[in-house]
């Protein structure tokens, strides 16, 4: 007989497949079988359908595709006989999952089977429905299942109960239909029905608040009684497991009591006695007993407090913790995490045991213990605990190191008592497991280092030593490079020695060596090498003697394949060579990084200002044009309570903010100035929105203004202008401006100008004066137009005159190009420049501004700086 006809018995096919020596042989056998099954399917053969489906299921379990058999399942389910239906339902559950649309076709068969007279067939249908029904099927068939909850046979009732669980999970709206039937099921005696009814009750309570209330009121007492009976029942062989009578039922009862008692004092009272009984009487030498005790402890922890019970529970946990069985210890560690919130002291007593569990050979136990330890740590025990954990870090497995480092770092960060301890611990962690440490960790370390200014010397020396010993840990190398770059001078000169340090002689060349080695190391990645370049730039300024050597190192990266390195190398080389005057300002000491903003940023809540990615502020030096603005803007927030930065660095910051302006816009403003000043004046006046038809008539008047300085004409001519914006053509004095402004006030044809403000002498010294004139447009009180005019009080002419201004965060400043950049002496002319300031806190804060004026006097660079805080209040 051909062994591969569709008449092959299942057994023979399995034997044939198992006899195959190679995967290719197996595939061949399976292919033949599938072919004959497919032929049988298309021929619609009835006889062997049952057998074919069984074979198909086996092939499916081997991993081959079997979707051509799905319709066979449906045909078998529709067959009248029990064995066919059984295998049909099994095939359905195995070959299909709830997302397949074919499943919908079964709904009708299921409905018929749920109403069948044969209780076993009803059972089959309930089982299939309970295992793989989709939401639509659940909704369609829910009424049938509800009815079956009261079927005469308990086995059907229990299956109906479990099927209902799936239904309410898929369609939570139907939950209320099941509440009443369940309440009556809970009074049954049959263990199977009771078990499943309790489970259904538990799920109902989790889905619906009303159900929870209902069961709490009606059923708590009954359930307590059932538990009492179960615990006290005599030996019954059918329920006995390891000497305990029906542990499953007891566990379920304890669970439902937990749900009912949680948050409700009355319900909890009812349970106290039985819980105490279970906790004390249950034998704990077998797993079944321990399972019951575990559930009992969970319940005690969740319900409302009644002192004695809690103590009992923690005692049980303590016993579990010292049990030799690993499962029990695991379970105990899990429970202790919940117990901490209830009685932290009791858990602290077991700290030593828990610490031992961190070092256990079992990975699951280690994980639990570590989580528990991180909950246990507080200010008093942080130092010894951290020491233990770091000691363990050295011997732990590599896959555990990742978790361990994260935990250690978070503990150290949250609870470190002093900065020097923090830095020490972090250094140890980095040296040991730096490769597993996340970026945020060493960023945070650098932030802390900048804040601990008295420890800079100590830190940089420790890091220098660390880089010699643990040069393979990337994080150590990065932190060390950053610090050596910043504080290299402290390192070489042994500044800031603490008592516990030994003196170390490090020459400048040694330092440059260390960085060179780090940059050339094969394992260094892009970030590390970029940081090396930056550090070298800083050192070239701090160690002028090594400047040439550093330049040589930096130029080596000019041909690098990595764009970042190439770019940095070129830029830094150019700075070192050509811009020596800028260099020292560029690489001055970093300001203290603000920990609060930094940790706020880390927590994901970016302040509105900072938009740069993490890590940038730490890698780029001050002053490079693409630097982050956030720390600088913070410092410029003149209304904050931060200490005023020293004036030398304030110059730096102004330069940074406006660095682009210095380098690029000076040329721009120069270009614009080639226009004739006369037309500028015209443009200014006419660009304020006056109707074009009036241009011509006004031009003559305006020109006459500038020539005659005739105030009256000015007032009259400008009366007709619709825009109230003052754009004066005037050259020097303030009084014509006053008249102009006054002229606008009472004019009825003009719209309301808004408040007028007197002009302000913003800045005055022996060589220069600066006057601001204000105007506001009605309707936009936040925007102020300022016209700045500069007057030269000396007798020399000023050339290359550049005005810069900076404002705090709540203001926005827009500068237009100045009228010229040559200021003739003796007040013979003035430069005007327009500014527009938008005050986001109009009414709450008044304007403040820092200004900086640079010019050349007899080819000598001059610089004036100042702060203007006497703006009128309402601007």
């Amino acid at each position, binding site marked *: 007989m051909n062994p591969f006809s569709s008449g092959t018995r299942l057994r023979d096919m399995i034997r044939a497949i198992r006899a195959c020596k190679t995967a290719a042989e197996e595939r061949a056998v399976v292919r033949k079988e599938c072919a004959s099954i497919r032929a049988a399917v298309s021929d619609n053969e009835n006889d062997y359908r049952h057998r074919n489906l069984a074979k198909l299921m086996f092939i499916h379990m081997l991993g081959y595709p079997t979707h051509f058999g799905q319709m066979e399942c449906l045909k078998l389910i529709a067959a009248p006989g029990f064995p066919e239906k059984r295998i049909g339902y099994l095939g359905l559950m195995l070959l299909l999952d709830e997302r397949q649309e074919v499943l919908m076709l079964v709904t009708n068969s299921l409905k018929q089977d749920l109403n069948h007279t044969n209780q076993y067939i009803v059972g089959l249908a309930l089982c299939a429905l309970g295992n793989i029904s989709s939401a639509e099927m659940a909704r369609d068939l829910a009424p049938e299942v509800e009815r079956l909850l009261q079927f005469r046979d308990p086995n059907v009732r229990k299956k109906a109960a479990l099927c209902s669980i799936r239904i309410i999970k898929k369609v939570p709206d139907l939950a209320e239909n099941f509440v009443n039937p369940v309440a009556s099921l809970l009074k049954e005696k049959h263990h199977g029905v009771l078990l499943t009814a309790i489970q259904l009750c538990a799920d109902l309570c989790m889905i619906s608040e009303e159900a929870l209330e209902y069961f709490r009121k009606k059923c708590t007492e009954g359930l307590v009684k059932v538990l009492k009976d179960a615990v006290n029942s005599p030996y019954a062989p059918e329920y006995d497991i390891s000497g305990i009578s029906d542990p*499953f039922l007891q566990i379920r009862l304890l669970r439902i009591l937990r749900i009912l008692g949680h948050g409700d004092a009355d319900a909890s009272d009812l349970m106290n006695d039985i819980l105490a009984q279970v906790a004390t009487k249950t034998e704990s030498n077998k797993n*079944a007993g321990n*399972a019951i005790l575990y559930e009992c402890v969970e319940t005690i922890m969740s319900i409302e407090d009644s002192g004695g019970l809690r103590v009992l529970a923690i005692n049980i946990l303590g016993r579990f913790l010292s049990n030799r069985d690993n*499962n029990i210890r695991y379970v105990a560690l899990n429970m202790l995490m919940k117990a901490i919130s209830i009685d932290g002291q009791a858990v602290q007593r077991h700290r030593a045991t828990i610490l031992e569990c961190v070092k256990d*050979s079992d990975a*699951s136990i280690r994980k639990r213990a570590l989580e528990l330890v991180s909950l246990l740590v507080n200010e008093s025990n942080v130092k010894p605990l951290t020491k233990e954990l770091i000691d363990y870090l050295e011997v732990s497995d590599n896959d555990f190191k990742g978790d361990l480092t994260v935990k250690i770092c978070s503990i150290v960060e949250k609870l470190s008592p002093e900065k020097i301890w923090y830095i020490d611990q972090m250094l140890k962690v980095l040296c040991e497991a730096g490769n597993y440490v996340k970026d945020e960790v060493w960023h945070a370390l650098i932030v802390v280092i900048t804040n601990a200014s008295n420890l800079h010397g100590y830190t940089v020396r420790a890091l220098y030593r660390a880089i010699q010993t643990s040069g393979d840990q990337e994080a150590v190398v990065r932190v060390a490079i950053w610090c050596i770059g910043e504080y290299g001078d402290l390192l070489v000169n042994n500044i800031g020695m603490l008592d516990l340090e030994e003196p170390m002689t490090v020459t400048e060349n040694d330092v440059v060596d260390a960085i060179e080695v780090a940059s050339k190391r094969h394992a260094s990645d892009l970030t590390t090498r970029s940081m090396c370049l930056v550090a070298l730039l800083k050192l070239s300024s701090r160690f002028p003697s090594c400047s040439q050597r550093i330049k040589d190192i930096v130029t080596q990266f000019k041909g690098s394949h990595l764009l970042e390195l190439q770019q940095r190398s070129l830029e830094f080389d150019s700075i070192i060579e050509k811009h020596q005057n800028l260099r020292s300002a560029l690489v001055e000491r970093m300001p203290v990084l603000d920990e609060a903003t930094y940790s706020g940023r880390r927590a994901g809540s970016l302040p509105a200002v900072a938009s740069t990615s993490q890590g940038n502020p730490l890698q780029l030096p001050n002053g490079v044009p693409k630097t982050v603005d956030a720390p600088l803007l913070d410092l410029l927030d003149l209304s904050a309570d931060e200490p005023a930065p020293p004036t030398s660095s304030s110059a730096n910051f102004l330069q940074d903010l406006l660095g682009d302006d210095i380098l690029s816009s000076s040329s721009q403003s120069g270009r614009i100035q080639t226009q004739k000043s006369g037309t500028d004046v015209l443009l200014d006046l006419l660009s304020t929105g006056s109707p074009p038809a009036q241009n011509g008539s006004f031009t003559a008047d305006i020109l006459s203004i500038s020539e005659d300085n005739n105030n009256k004409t000015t007032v009259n001519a400008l009366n007709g202008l619709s825009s109230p914006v003052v754009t004066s053509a005037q050259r020097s004095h303030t009084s014509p401006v006053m008249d102009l402004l006054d002229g606008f006030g009472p004019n009825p044809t003009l719209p309301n100008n808004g408040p007028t403000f007197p002009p302000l002498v913003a800045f005055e010294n022996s060589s220069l004066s600066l006057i601001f004139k204000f105007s506001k447009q009605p309707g936009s009180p936040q925007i102020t137009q300022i016209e700045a005019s500069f007057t030269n009080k000396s007798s020399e002419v000023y050339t290359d005159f550049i005005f810069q201004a900076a404002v705090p965060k709540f203001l926005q400043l827009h500068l237009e190009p100045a009228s010229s950049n040559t200021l003739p002496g003796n007040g013979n002319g003035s430069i005007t420049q327009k500014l527009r300031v938008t005050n986001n806190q109009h009414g709450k804060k008044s304007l403040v501004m820092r200004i900086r004026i640079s010019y050349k006097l007899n080819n000598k660079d001059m610089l004036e700086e100042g702060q203007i805080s006497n703006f009128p209040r309402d601007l």
Partner: protein
Amino acid sequence: MIHFVLSISRQGKVRLTKWYSPYTQRERTKVIQELSGMILTRGPKLCNIVEWRGFKVVYRRYAGLYFCMCVNHEDNELEILEIIQYFVETLNRYFGSVCELDLIFHFHQTYYILDEILIAGELQESSKTTVHRLIDAQVIC
């Protein structure tokens, strides 16, 4: 709730799979591969619980077969161990000293037995005699 039941041989061959939560075919193969890797490499003295993707997988080894059940984080692991024991004892009583070959050649009966013990990922019956009686009745039927 039990999300799925797996039975894997020591060589990594799958002998039984039952899924009570929605997993596509592709996801199922992936899950099986992952868990096989995790569980088959664990030493004998270690605890029977592994944490996986936020769930817990409780397993026990019987001769050359590992029986694994995946449960939620808040379930009682020790009870699941009891359920696994219960299932294997029932198999034992039905097949008479069950061995792996029985599970291979009579896999559909194994599934029938599992369906009498668990539905929708929950335990159905705690009485062994009832379960046996039901299984016997349905074989004749």
